[in-house]
């Protein structure tokens, strides 16, 4: 579609690694990183690419960043093919691949940005103004980090500088690979809010990978779930939650769990998980039900008839984490 900023069609990538076994022999290993990944991201949309470790998220981001050639399939950014028109793609993207490194330790934050701006072909006067603006935008000025050596930066400051670099050329498309990994809550919040603002205020298209479900729900308009190199589900967080089997969890916090209680509950056709003890000494019993409201009365009666007091009772709504676990474990 004309409105698509990022298009990935049947992307396939297989890594071939050689492992030394013995003095002269090498063992060749093949790892299928992507097995036909296809998705589209509309202009101005923030899309989360979710998946467990090794699912293919970083490989996808690398292909879109022109840092890796796909074995087959096709991908484009703003209509430019990532293989044939890599130089054009490089002009319209901003990338953030790792938080903890990626700059020169003996340069200050400001100098690092000037260095990379020069590589990006920015005119020096414009570059200096832009660097000044970005240091302020990401909050490094207020932290006193603009003219401090990068090797003295905290992880949070490094992440802010990495985001500033991604924004140097004011690119319409941002590819951010786990931009808040390992950050303290204030820094993570700053990055999240900035990314959200960049999309809503400046209309930037963002492809964002993360393991933090709360973050993805806050930042992203839409989520693509990827597992073992394949897209397993995609949609808005609400759409994905609605795709879950209609089973919800009733959580009962009990002072004790008498023998036979779980079996009696099961006799009503309900699934019961093993009880877990909380730090306060209560027992949490999770009961899965399709319509919890209909079985609630029976459940309370069964428990109280055994002389057990219910300290707390709640019906859990499915979270994005449930969606993640459901779709990734289903393919496992």
């Amino acid at each position, binding site marked *: 579609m004309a409105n698509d900023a990022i298009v990935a069609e049947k992307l396939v990538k297989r*890594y071939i690694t050689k492992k030394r076994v013995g003095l002269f022999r090498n063992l060749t290993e093949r790892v299928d990183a992507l097995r036909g990944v296809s998705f589209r991201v509309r202009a101005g949309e923030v899309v989360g690419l979710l998946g467990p470790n090794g699912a293919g998220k970083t490989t996808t981001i690398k292909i879109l*960043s022109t840092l*890796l050639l796909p074995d087959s399939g096709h991908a484009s950014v703003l209509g430019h093919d990532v293989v044939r028109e890599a130089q054009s793609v490089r*002009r319209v993207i901003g990338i953030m691949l790792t938080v903890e490194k990626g*700059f020169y*330790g003996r340069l200050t934050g400001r100098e690092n940005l000037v260095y990379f701006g020069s*590589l*990006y*072909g920015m005119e020096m006067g414009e570059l200096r103004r832009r660097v000044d603006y970005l240091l302020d935008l990401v909050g490094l000025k207020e932290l006193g980090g603009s003219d401090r050596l990068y090797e003295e930066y905290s992880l949070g400051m490094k992440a802010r500088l990495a985001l500033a670099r991604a924004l140097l050329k004011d690119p319409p498309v941002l590819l951010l*690979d786990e931009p808040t990994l390992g950050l303290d809550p204030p820094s993570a919040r700053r990055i999240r809010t900035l990314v959200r603002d960049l999309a809503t205020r400046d209309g930037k298209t963002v492809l964002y990978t993360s393991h933090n479900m709360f973050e993805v729900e806050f930042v992203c308009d839409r989520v693509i779930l990827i597992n073992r190199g394949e897209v397993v589900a995609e949609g808005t967080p609400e759409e994905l939650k609605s795709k879950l089997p209609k089973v919800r969890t009733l959580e009962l916090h009990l002072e004790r769990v008498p023998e036979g209680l779980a079996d009696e509950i099961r006799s009503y056709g309900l699934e019961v998980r093993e009880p877990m003890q909380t730090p306060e000494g209560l027992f949490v019993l999770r009961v899965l039900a399709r319509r919890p409201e209909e079985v609630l009365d029976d459940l309370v009666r069964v428990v109280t008839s055994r002389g057990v007091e219910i300290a707390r009772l709640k019906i859990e709504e499915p979270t994005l984490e449930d969606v993640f676990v459901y779709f990734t474990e289903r393919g496992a």
Partner: protein
Amino acid sequence: MGSLVDLVRAEMMLVYADLFRRKSVIAVYLAWPYMTTAFILMIGYAAGSPQAFAERVGVEAPLFMVVGSYLLFSTMAVVDDIMWRPIYDESSGTLPYIVSSPTKAAVHYISMPIPRFLFALVLGAAALLPLLIVYRGIEGVLLGAVVVLLSVASAIVFVPLATALGLGLYTLGGESWRAIGFLRPLLLMLMGVYYPRWLMSFPLYVVSSLLPPAHCVEVVQRVVTGLAEARAVTVSLSLALALAVVYGPGMLRASRAWELKKLREGVKT
């Protein structure tokens, strides 16, 4: 694509931050020609006589060695800058951002050693001139200027071959300091810095003729020993320049092949 001037300015910032934010490094650089000379002379005087050296080579051993060490420093700095850089960029995580920039690898590699050339000029004035003045008086200043300029020329003509060799080796065998460990002593020997080319055996002389800086080094040594003739100097410098031009396409090819290999494997983050 970034203009070459802006790229050089950026590289200069990087090199000078590295040098001037570690004062001990500057001290070592300034002392380097003398330290190396002292080491070589210590061994040389133990095994032979300084008079024999002066008779055979035509110049006092300390002067010859200090000039040789300086030449070595300024030329090898280029090899180090170019060959260490991919390894350094990979370990510091900057490589993906360099590869994904619109600047072509070859242009970047041309800009990389220029700050070192300029540093070599300053270093030459600071480290080399005092000794040349002691040995040759006021004529030493002129000699120093000639040596410094020729050593920078030696470094410049070395860029295409050093890039082709470095990136070529990385493409074939992967980024490894072992490649540098293999190349460095070989180049050092063939350049004839400590052993004049005109004293080399014929096969070695032919092989060393393939190295552009070897011709510059020979000119410097002939100037220092007073054996320089206008015609021979012109031929040597023309040969150095011609070889640099000949290795140019090799440099472009090696940089493209290296980039392609990186893209096939995926640039490490």
